[in-house]
């Protein structure tokens, strides 16, 4: 067995022992850029923050770009995966663990101790790292930076720098190039620049919430929180437009696009979480667990998160509709009944029209989750959640001593457990351990909704090319969602899986041209076979028709 261990930090070059002088300079430049940020964390006060910030980010982006150009443009076009399982950083080696721990700690500080990054609290001036970003924040929104602005900037920088690297890596593959260009655009424009610029419109009597248009409920779990809905309603026509657009996105636009193209239209073309996973996280895609156990865990986990997310959102909305009823069109009762009717009709429709596509375990799970959800709705309709008090210390190892109303307790627990710990600390911090899509695969409720639709009502599939599969396993290995692609391909069967985000890398790395992402008719989309194309036609007829 191969024991070649390479202790370099290189993510790109097959053998970093051979990195060129140019690459060494680029690596050094990038590290200097990073070092400026670290100095800022330790409260080094730079004389001209704007210049130092520009130099720092410029060196990071420029260093990555020069390094990647040297790594990929000096070679012929093709698949560049040499050594990914030898390198410490991309095969759960010491460097992988070190990076994982570093990222995890960064997320913990970001979410729970932003003052360590220099965030000024109670009106105090920003210091340290956050202060370093003040000039850029002022330039965009006119306000000083917050820890979220710092995070948003670094996030965008990572997607741009590593997106460029990914585009070079796949310069022979236009699907990969366009998709990466798309996530780079949506992150920079929709998640970063536009919301910051829109903040300039805010004044004393007009204020819009920070609104990343593409960030839909339920991925955006606070989309329908009272403060946000109130702000939208108070911001007259513009606000109302955004509020309605948010709802239309969830119930009309997303289902339509998912029907036409599969959930990839969002997950690997638009989404910010997906964007980071596909760019900065690309080097870790092979680390996702392809085992049957992981898949079973995934099914329970991700569907539970969806139910949790729906229940929490309904609890929050129904509570403020209850105690603040004169402000809204809906009353609590009407709201709960319409949600109940909607879910029942949807559920009954799926059971009736798709009964042949659901196996026993899927059916059992679906019925269980449905009953659970409806039970919560009934519970909410009989109790005023704002009157039920929960002491948070029981759920937070004593870290949080506050007492919450039931609805805000649910909301806080969701925000803490799912929004912060799962999607951030585990989802991204653990890239080098669990792979780059652990959150998307195990936790994202939006991915669950689109996934159910992708499995049952979509034209999208990965077509298997007749009998050409040689079971090599490159496809499964590179699947970031942990799908055992080969298990389907070697049976000549199309891949129709709810979790597939349509990144297209399985198709790219296949050495025999077996896989193709396609949108085609729904008939014959799922095609289990006994005998593959190429054998005796009588035998194929005999076995495949049984």
């Amino acid at each position: 067995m191969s024991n070649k261990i390479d202790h370099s930090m290189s993510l790109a070059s097959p053998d970093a022992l051979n990195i060129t002088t140019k690459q060494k300079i680029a690596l050094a430049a990038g590290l200097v850029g990073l070092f400026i940020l670290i100095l800022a964390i330790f409260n080094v006060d730079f004389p001209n923050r704007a210049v130092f910030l520009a130099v720092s980010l410029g060196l990071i982006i420029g260093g990555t770009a020069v390094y990647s150009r040297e790594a990929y443009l000096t070679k012929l076009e093709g698949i560049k995966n040499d050594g990914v399982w030898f390198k410490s950083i991309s095969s759960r080696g010491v460097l992988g663990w070190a990076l994982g721990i570093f990222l995890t700690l960064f997320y913990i500080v970001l979410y729970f101790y932003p003052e360590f990054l220099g965030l000024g609290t109670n009106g105090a001036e920003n210091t340290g790292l956050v202060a370093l970003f003040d000039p850029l924040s002022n330039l965009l929104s006119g306000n000083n930076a917050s820890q979220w602005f710092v995070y948003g900037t670094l996030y965008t920088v990572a997607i741009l720098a590593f997106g460029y690297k990914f585009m070079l890596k796949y310069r022979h593959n236009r699907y990969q190039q366009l998709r990466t260009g798309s996530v780079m655009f949506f992150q920079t424009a929709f998640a970063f620049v536009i919301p910051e610029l829109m903040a300039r419109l805010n004044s004393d009597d007009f204020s819009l919430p920070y609104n990343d248009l593409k960030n839909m409920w339920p991925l955006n779990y606070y989309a329908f929180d009272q403060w946000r809905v109130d702000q939208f309603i108070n911001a007259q026509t513009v606000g109302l437009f955004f509020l309605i657009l948010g709802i239309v996105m969830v119930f009309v636009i997303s289902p339509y696009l998912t029907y036409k193209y599969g959930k990839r239209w969002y997950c690997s073309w638009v989404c910010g979480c997906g964007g980071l996973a596909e760019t900065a996280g690309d080097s870790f895609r092979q680390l996702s667990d392809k085992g049957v156990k992981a898949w079973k865990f995934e099914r329970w986990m991700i569907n539970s998160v969806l139910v949790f997310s729906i229940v929490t959102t309904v609890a929050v909305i129904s509570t403020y509709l209850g105690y603040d009823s004169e402000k809204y069109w809906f009353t609590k009762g009407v709201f709960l009944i319409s949600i109940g009717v909607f879910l029942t009709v949807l559920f009954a429709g799926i059971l009736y029209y798709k009964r042949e596509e659901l196996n026993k375990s899927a059916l059992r799970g679906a019925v269980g989750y449905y009953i659970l959800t409806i039970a919560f709705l009934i519970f909410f309709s009989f109790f005023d959640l704002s009157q039920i008090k929960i002491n948070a210390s029981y759920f937070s190892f004593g870290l949080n001593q506050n007492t919450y109303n039931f609805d805000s307790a649910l909301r806080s627990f969701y925000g803490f457990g799912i929004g912060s710990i799962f999607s951030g600390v585990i989802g991204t911090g653990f890239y080098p351990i669990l792979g780059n899509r652990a959150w998307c695969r195990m936790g994202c409720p939006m991915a669950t909704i689109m996934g159910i639709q992708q499995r049952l009502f979509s034209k999208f599939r990965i077509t298997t090319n007749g009998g050409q599969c040689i079971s090599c396993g490159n496809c499964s290995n590179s699947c970031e969602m942990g799908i055992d692609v080969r298990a389907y391909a070697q049976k000549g069967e199309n891949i129709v899986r709810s979790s597939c985000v349509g990144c297209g890398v399985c198709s790219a790395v296949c050495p025999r041209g077996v896989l193709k992402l396609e949108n085609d008719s729904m008939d014959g989309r799922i095609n289990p076979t006994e005998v593959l194309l190429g054998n005796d036609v009588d035998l194929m007829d005999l076995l495949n028709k049984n």
Partner: protein
Amino acid sequence: MEHVVIIGNGISGVTVARHIRKNSDKKITIVSAETDYFFSRTALMYIYMGHMKFEHTQPYENSFWKKNRIELKKGFVETVETASKTLRFAGGDTLQYDKLVIATGSKPNKFGWPGQDLEGAQGLYSKQDLDSIERNAPDNKTCKRAVIVGGGLIGIELAEMLNSRSIPVTFLVREDSFWNGVLPKGESAMINRHIKNHHIDLRLSTNLKEIKSDENGKVKSIVITETGEEIECNVVGLTAGVAPNIDFIKTSNIETNRGVLVNRQLETNIPDVYAIGDCAEQRDGGIGQRRPIEAVWYTGRMMGEVLAQTICGNTMEYKPGHWFNSAKFLDIEYQTYGWVFAKPRENEAHFHWKHDDDTKCITVCYSTTDNTFLGINTFGIRMRHETFDRWLTEKRDVDYVIKNLKEANFDPEFYKHFEKEIIATYNNQLQTV
């Protein structure tokens, strides 16, 4: 309960086992001396290149075998006693069978070169070969140069592997162009250039005279027949084709030639003994235009699918459909459907198109008597198996195929299409003819 014993856990043996299990309750045992579990032989190269680990090349989880009641026995069969239906293993133990399937695959050819058994001289076929190359060529300091002998599919894979670790490669090819016994001239020439673009030292029309040893019995250098040139190297890849791996059968009364001789039902001369995959040889010559021995992944799998029917009581002939195959030459993928021979045979003609970037081309073979489409080789453009299989069955003419080529395209979305260019070239060539 009838006991079916299968020797060999490659794609043929595993396929027959799986299909017997689907159709019956028989006791099934797979014997292998190579590895504990089935792995994809075609993926060995990716382990050395660091794309995957060995366990990733195993298509089924380890629990699969127990769940499907397929027993696995690790051991090397020394002799087969067909009279008593007994296998004798190297360790001395024995195994009784009711039905025996021989699916032992191939072994690399060695043509009696001096020094061919030195440490560092090896083929690339088995897990043991992979371990050996990892030992002898872990990096470009231990292995300063490697020489590959034999210009076929395994040779070019080995070159790609060594290249991935920056080990300089000299590639000796007996023919005057790479794999031109199979590939038409234009394609073969394109691959020659592609190999050189990867900085591989390709030597055409060049033969190995001998491999020289250092004082420790390791490879030190090789000598070229034509020029007498001596090339220093630490590894010699012997990749001049493969032959059936059936030495252990020679002492039995199972009839063999180069491979184990079988009839169209894949039965040997001994009742209840069958042979499939690389090691089987069709007694009456190849089926259709196929060779009597087909050492190809796909045919091994197809024989397994068919034989399972026979063993389960539904006797069937091995009647493969239209020929297809695939490979990858460094960065260029290759697929073939139907028959395209290196030189058009009688009443056949080739249409060849090559893209300016020198990484994509197709060759279409058709009948000059009635214009029937006979086959296509495609390089750098993926094509749909199902479409060509149908066109071959429907006996479409070549005009139809060229005009509808777009329907067969299987490249990823947003890729550039070349059908217009191909049609234009096709029309031009027809006018000049």
